[in-house]
């Protein structure tokens, strides 16, 4: 037994029916350290965390906190023992206000009743600490996933916890928010909190963590000091073989012929009151247009207008040169547009249907209910895409809700890719996806473009946007500020535009 460990998990095994999610895994957390938990999608990271906080009972193994064996009955008990957790999918109540979500269950009280003024004050304080500029009384559901993620983090760091668990807290955040978060994490580390951190961003892990534990297929690969391991070694520990994912994806700039072709989709003055101001945008076949901007800059809003998920109240759209009015997603799909939404839990995943049914859902919907995709075809599609995207478990009959977050995302991508759209709109397609899969997805997008699909690509990772895009539309405060093309698509340039709004209008 490690006397200095604050949390010590030994020999943890968990099975969900036939799926062995964890097998004899060990994990130690020391006070005053940031410990990264690494592994591919479905490796068992979230499950390990949920065992620690008592969400899942363990089949075998022991958990000790400060040397004492514990078996938490649930998150409430874990919280009471000083373990504060941010779970992977945002787990807050969208119907309540931001402030309440921050303090639910530990609202300041006066004479037995909730002191609402105190709640507001406290909430403002907590938000201020993370430099978040939101109205604490606004309903949480009205905010983007990124903001909700920040609220969840704020909630977790609000309490004086001994252990802070962060399961992919940064998946939707952009650089400045991540920096903000890390500042907080460092401060907590200095004050002796043990922090467990999960992320698929290798750079972030190396930046913040002191030690790491690597899982693969539910088994422990090893524990390493961050200083002693290289990026390449880490990836091969996670993946189990050598992988050239850290090479930058080389994408040839758009073929000059592209300009000659009529745009797949062209928007002029497209906007919606309160959501996004009028935007002009044209996407040509084979072209990848990136949308860049900070959190809340209106990228998602624009994407939703392009897809008819929300109705635009100004502007025109043409598809293939013909004017259209996209009143419903259905109309957009008929026009050859596909949209993978940002909030996969609420807007993408049909949890109680199988992986297969989820993969063919959009294709089936566009064929109409009368013309069912034959079972053999469904199986074939599912098998091919499960293999292509390395979806795990590789079982087309598994319920999508039981897959790990990253694997769910892959299924949603497959849903749209099989419809072979003319325009593919991807809002944060690589959110929560492991390094290997991320490279695969980037390659897929590049390949789609090469085959003539037009792509609108949104990602919180500017790197990714810049690397993939032929053109980048920069948004700021829900307003377009610039469009960069060709040589100008460059990380520094984009960052500068985002930061300053740029005098230069495109």
């Amino acid at each position: 037994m490690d006397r200095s460990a604050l949390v010590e998990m030994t020999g943890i095994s968990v099975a969900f029916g036939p799926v062995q999610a964890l097998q004899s895994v060990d994990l130690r957390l020391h006070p005053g350290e940031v410990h990264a938990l690494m592994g591919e999608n479905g490796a068992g990271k979230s499950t390990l965390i949920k065992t620690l906080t008592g969400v899942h009972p363990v089949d075998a193994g022991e958990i000790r906190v400060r040397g004492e064996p514990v078996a938490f009955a649930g998150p409430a008990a874990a919280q009471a023992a000083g373990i504060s957790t941010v779970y992977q999918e945002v787990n807050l109540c969208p119907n309540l206000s931001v402030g309440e979500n921050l303090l639910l269950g530990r609202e300041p009280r006066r004479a037995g009743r909730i002191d609402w003024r105190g709640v507001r004050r406290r909430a403002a304080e907590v938000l201020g600490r993370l430099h978040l500029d939101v109205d604490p009384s606004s309903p949480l559901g009205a905010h983007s996933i990124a903001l909700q993620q920040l609220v969840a983090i704020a909630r977790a760091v609000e309490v004086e916890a001994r252990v802070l668990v962060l399961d992919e807290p940064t998946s939707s955040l952009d650089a400045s928010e991540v920096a903000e978060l890390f500042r907080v994490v460092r401060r907590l580390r200095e004050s002796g909190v043990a922090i467990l951190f999960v992320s698929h961003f290798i750079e972030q892990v190396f930046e913040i963590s002191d030690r790491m534990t690597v899982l693969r297929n539910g088994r422990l690969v090893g524990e390493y000091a961050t200083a002693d391991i290289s990026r390449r070694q880490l990836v091969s520990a996670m993946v189990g073989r050598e992988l050239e994912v850290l090479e930058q994806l080389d994408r040839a700039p758009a073929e000059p012929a592209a300009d000659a072709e009529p745009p797949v989709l062209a928007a002029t003055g497209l906007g919606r009151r309160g959501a996004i101001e009028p935007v002009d945008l044209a996407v040509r076949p084979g072209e990848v247009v990136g949308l860049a901007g900070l959190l809340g800059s209106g990228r998602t809003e624009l994407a939703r207008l392009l897809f008819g998920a929300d109705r635009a109240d100004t502007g025109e759209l043409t598809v293939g040169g013909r004017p259209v009015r996209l009143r419903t997603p259905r109309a957009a799909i008929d026009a050859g547009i596909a949209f993978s939404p940002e909030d996969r839990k609420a807007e993408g995943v049909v949890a109680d249907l199988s992986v297969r049914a989820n993969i063919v859902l959009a294709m089936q919907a566009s064929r109409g209910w009368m013309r069912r995709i034959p079972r053999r075809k469904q199986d074939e599609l599912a098998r091919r895409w499960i293999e292509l995207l390395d979806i795990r478990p590789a079982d087309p009959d598994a319920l999508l809700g039981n897959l790990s977050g990253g694997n769910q995302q892959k299924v949603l991508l497959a849903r749209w890719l099989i419809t072979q759209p003319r325009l593919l709109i991807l809002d944060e397609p690589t959110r929560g996806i492991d390094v290997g899969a991320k490279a695969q997805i980037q390659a897929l997008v590049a390949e789609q473009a090469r085959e003539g699909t037009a792509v609108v690509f949104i990602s919180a990772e500017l790197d990714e946007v810049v690397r993939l895009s032929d053109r980048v539309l920069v948004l700021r405060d829900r307003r377009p500020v610039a469009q960069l093309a060709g040589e100008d698509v460059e990380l520094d340039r984009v960052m500068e535009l985002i930061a300053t709004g740029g005098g230069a209008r495109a």
Partner: protein
Amino acid sequence: MRDLLRRPVWPLVALLLLNLAVMPSFFAVRLQDGRLYGSLIDILHNGAPLALAALGMTLVIATRGIDLSVGTVVAISGAVACTWIASSPDPASPGTALTGIGLALALAAALGAWNGFLVARLGIQPIIATLVLMTAGRGLAQLVTDGQIITVNNGFFAGISGSALLAVPLTVVVAAAVYALVALVTRRTALGTLVEAVGINPEASRLAGVRSQSIVWTVYVFAALCAAVAGLMISSNVNAADANNAGLWLELDAILAVVIGGTSLAGGRYSIAGTLLGALTIQTLTTTIYSVGIPPEVSLVFKALVVILVFLAQAPKVRALMRRRRRRRDDAPPPAATAVPAETAGSGR
């Protein structure tokens, strides 16, 4: 079929055995006037309207909806058909009966479309949207019949419940045919999956291009049609339309049947075979109360206790507890060797 076997059949079996114990001739079936006759046949025959109503309800519930107007539509369809027949110059001709039946079905379809309009188009919560029809509809039925029981003497109309196909009561044949049709359609087309998708996550379905509005619309129309057929059966059974009482509280029994069948009221996954089983269980329970001679003043308590028992025994949580206890008792050595494969996820919902 496999689906059916996974459903809880035992409450039905237990009830049947209880009857057999009280009445040894319970399973006896004989031919009477070219038609099968016996308690089992009664259960099927009397259960047919409930089974149909529950079938429509199943699909509505699968889309996260609920239809409280089922009982009312039963009353309306009987009222319209019987009033039409009784007030026509030729109240005994098959043609009149057919027109009356057609009218009833058409009106029911319109009422279903109305429900669908409120739910799908206006986005009103299903329970309140269908409550409107539940309240007003019975008044409508009474308006049609002028509050009287309309008696008809029409051989063709009486035949809906009185005649038999190959000795099997027509009601049973019709109900079976509709079940088969729905099973076929939902399996052979994508309707089943799309209905489930809409029920599980409406927003995701909409963004995936599923025409959720028309699907919701369709299921309400279908539910109303099922109820209308049930109404025709019920009124044909007594050759009269009773706008005041026909189908009263039928919606609750229909919902109960759906849930006994394993479909969750939260929408999504549904089971048609389960609903059939649920409807038969409820009808058997009713018949049992009559034939075992439960006094009316305790019959509701009896019904409540049976329902509670059924659900307790069926609850996954309880089953898991029992399984664990049994395992602990059966094999004293650590259970590592006997990795019982858990039931496929999702089947029990």
